[in-house]
Every structure is written in C-alpha cells, then in structure tokens.
C-alpha cells in the first residue's frame, strides 16, 4: 500500500490540519516509511484472535444517575480564546 499526494492531502483534510501543497510530497514519503514499518503486522497469524478492547480485565462501574456537579460556566469558559455572553464564539457557520 503506497500513499500518494492525493491521499496525503485527503488524510490532512480528515485530520483538520492545513498542509501546504508543496509539503505534500515529503508528507507522503513519511507516511510510506511509517506504513512500510507497520506492514510487518501482516506476517502475524491472527486468525481467531480477539482484538484487545481492555488491557486489564475489568467491568466498568456504573454511577448513580444523579446530577453531581454543574453550574461551572465561568470555569468552563475561562480558557476559551473567544467567549461571549456565556458561549464559545466561533466564525460564522451558517450563511
């Protein structure tokens, strides 16, 4: 499996990371190096093996269905680059 510049551009788009067109060839090359390394996994016989979901066997605990905290609007917004009137502010998303 080899990654070309179009695929590299698509992955960058999916990851929401702006990559300038002139940086795409080098990026594709790096992907191919890393994926080439990962390809070794194809040598392993994984027939009938369960994919790991939890490294330590455990049952997730349930908590009581009650309100535990809240009313922390000021704290939630404290680190926002742009917060107005109790909301996070972003560029216009609806025309």
């Amino acid at each position: 499996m080899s990654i070309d510049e179009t695929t590299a551009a698509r992955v960058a788009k999916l990851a929401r990371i702006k990559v300038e067109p002139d940086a795409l060839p080098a990026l594709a090359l790096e992907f191919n190096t890393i994926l080439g390394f990962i390809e070794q996994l194809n040598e392993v016989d994984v027939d009938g093996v369960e994919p790991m979901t939890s490294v330590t066997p455990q049952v997730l605990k349930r908590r009581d269905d009650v309100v535990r905290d809240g009313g922390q609007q000021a704290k939630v917004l404290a680190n926002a680059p742009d917060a107005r009137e109790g909301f996070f502010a972003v560029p216009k998303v609806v025309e």
Partner: protein
Amino acid sequence: MTDLNKLGLADARDALRKGDVSSVELTNACLSEIEGAGALNAFVHHTADLAADQAKVADARIKAGDAPAMCGLPIGIKDLFCTKGVPSQAGSRILQGFLPEYESTVSQNLFDAGAVMLGKLNMDEFAMGSSNETSVYGNAVNPWRRAGDDAPLTPGGSSGGSAAAVAADLCLAATGTDTGGSIRQPAAFTGTVGIKPTYGRCSRWGVVAFASSLDQAGPMTKTVRDAAIMLGAMAGYDAKDSTSADLAVPDFEAALTGDIRGKKIGIPREYHMDGMPEEIEKLWQDGIAMMRDAGAEIVDISLPHTKYALPAYYVIAPAEASSNLARYDGVRYGHRAKLDQGDGITEMYEKTRAQGFGPEVQRRVMVGTYVLSAGFYDAYYNRARKVRTLIKKDFEDAFAAGVDSILTPATPSAAFGLGEMTDADPVAMYLNDVFTVTVNLAGLPGIALPTGTSSKGLPLGLQLIGRPWEEADLLSTAYALEKAAGFVAKPDKWW
C-alpha cells in the same frame, strides 16, 4: 546539612521527621539549584511562590506530628499533568496560555501526601518523542556528557525534563508518564529510577491524554526505595477515571526486602536484537549474574511476538492520539489561529492545528487518522489490536509457567546526542522504545534502574517487568538488583 537538593525522598523524609532539616530549607536548596540550571532547560514553568507556601504548611504538619508519606518533599511535575492555575501545556504550542481550573488526581494525591511542587518539567510535545526534541520549550539537556566530550546529549523522552531534573539534583523526585517507554527510557539515559505501574494503578484523570489505553503515570526518582514511596502516594482508585483499578494500594516500601532467593527471573530470547551494541549485551549478562548471585533462578523464556510490538504500537498509539487530540480545535482552550477575511470554521480548525501542533504530533495524528479511516480500519487498527492480544498472551504464558519477573535491557543504547537523529527517518527514533513498548501493550508494570556505565562513561539501565498488580514484588526485586549493581555515579556539574 549541605547540598540538601542532593537528598533522595527517603533520606529527606527521615531528616525532616527527626527535625534535622525543614521543608523550607529543602525547598530553598532546590529552588536555588533550579535557578542555576537554566542550561538544562528542565523546569519550564516555575512555581517558587507555591512551593514556599506548601513548604511552610508541610513544616507545620510535621511539627504537629501529622506527616504523610511525601510531607515537605520538593518535587517536579511533568508538564503533562494539569495543575490548577499553573500553566500545563503538554509541551505544545496549542496549549499556550492554558491554565487548568482543576488539579489532576495524581498531583492532588501527591499534594494530599504533603509534597511540594517546584514547577513544571519539560517533555516532548504531547509525550510524543524519545529525545525531548519535539518540545515547544526547546530541548531538555542531559546533565551527563560523554567522557572528554562537551556535545549536549538527550535526557531521553518523553519525560526528558523529569529525568534531567532528578539526575541533576534540581529536585528530589519527579512525576513522569509512560505510553511506550517515556519513563523508563529517560531514566535509563540519566542514571535514575523510573517505574511505570500496571495500567489502572494511577488515575489518568487530569493527565493530558496521548493514547488512553497505554498511558500511565509513575515516579522518577534517585533510588528504588524512593520509587516505592512516591508510587504509593501517586496511586489509588479514582472514580473520575473509568479505567482506574479499585484495588488497595499496598505499602510498597515495607515490601522492599530485597530477598529474591528462589524467585524465577525470565530472560526473553527475543530481546537479543540484531545489531545490539556489545556493551548493552554485557550489561544484561552482568545483571543476570547479579540476580543469580542473589539467589534467583534464571530461566530462558520466549516472548514470540516481541518483534511486532513496535509496529502494533505505531498503529494503536497514533489511532488513539488522533481521537484524543481532536479536542484541540481552537474553540475551548489554548491557541486559535488568526483568521483571514472569509475564513470559516473549517479554516479555523485547520490553521489552528497546523500552527499549534509540531511536526511529530501532526505526523502521528495523520497516521492515526489514516489507519482509522474507512477501508483501512480492519487492515491496520483491528489487526494491531489482535497482535496486541497475542503480545499480552506471550507474557501471560511466561507468568503461568512460574516466572516472577523478566529482566531485559531498558534501551538499545546509551543517551545519544541532541540533533543526532534529526536526519534519520521517524522509524529510527521509534526503535528507542523496542524493549519498553511491549510492557505498555500488555498493561504490565516495568521499572528501569541504572546498573552500569557505557565505554564513554554514560549510565546504562536494565528493565524488570512484573506481573500485573505486583509492583510490590517488582520493586523488591529491583531493590535487590540495585544493591548488587551498586551504581552511585553522578554527572559532573558543568551547567
């Protein structure tokens, strides 16, 4: 008492309790040492005022006869831990200016145990790196140098600042985190002790997430005893982390008997890597002899899937990272790119993340995005998770056959020069974690400790791997190896 900063946790604790020294004195000794150690670039956010306050409170507690495990002991905290009101950037530009409104469980546990925080420690960006060279703060520098050579060396990564600070006696101990070897590799590169506990032993709540199924916090210290003390203070069940284990934390220090007579120590044949330097092989053989002399039974074991651990890791860790790091969107915290006329929300995300993430983080987020994308999920991600099951089974089989712990090298080399790997491809850097990454994939406890020096006079470390939840036994075995190795070298002060 002179050179208080050079004390370890146990010695300082005993001196505090005897009244020979105060926490204020210990803390001041460390603060002045930090001030003179700018060249190491270990401490990146200084909290001298907080430390002074905490030290005074600790002295009062000691006087009142209420001195918990870490009372009055000055430590450094890796920048990955959220500390309330103190910059917590995970070594990244994207979290510039972020001041957490809450305290991570591990740092809170340490504060509850009386610890004093001197500041935040340098690290690779989002803990992605093995040399501390991906940090937005610049490189942390190893206090050790090759004999007769002034070239600056890496302290390892990602917990490079923690390792450098402990090795240079800027603090008594430090917190680290370990996703693929980020505690144990820097410990080995700096002649210090680092333990990654069993997955679930320390709460991940408030620790900036890299790969959630692999991340674990642990102590970085000057001795095995100190590691036992500090791990006890960091660990414990936390309802805020759903993967936190609801198990009692044993008294790790009390378990340090150093008696390993009759213990079965496994030596995995697959860890004899092609091209491994002779001095690493010799270090390992010397360690085996020490364990045998201390009464342990040495057995050859096989961990057949070892070779596939790194490739599996470089699917699973980036996949989880791409998901975890999706939260850095320029909306809720940290950096937001300056936008051009007409830019919408997509441009805001893309520019923010391109400016905020460094090259290695971008690379891993994109690799993770790729292996999780439609059409590749089964071929890469699911296959890697199946291989992970097999890697864990390798260890389970060894333990089922009666092995108590496993002895391996910690790293394939001594510390390398800063900048030396710049031109190498990313995979060459990944190979640093070849001996440590299996342990994260299997969720096991692993400890690195110094047992020898390289031909250039640099520290070299061995790793011991234990059964799940048996850190007490693992630490005691490490204690025996520490005594046998008698490693006492310290770096010459040049900074």
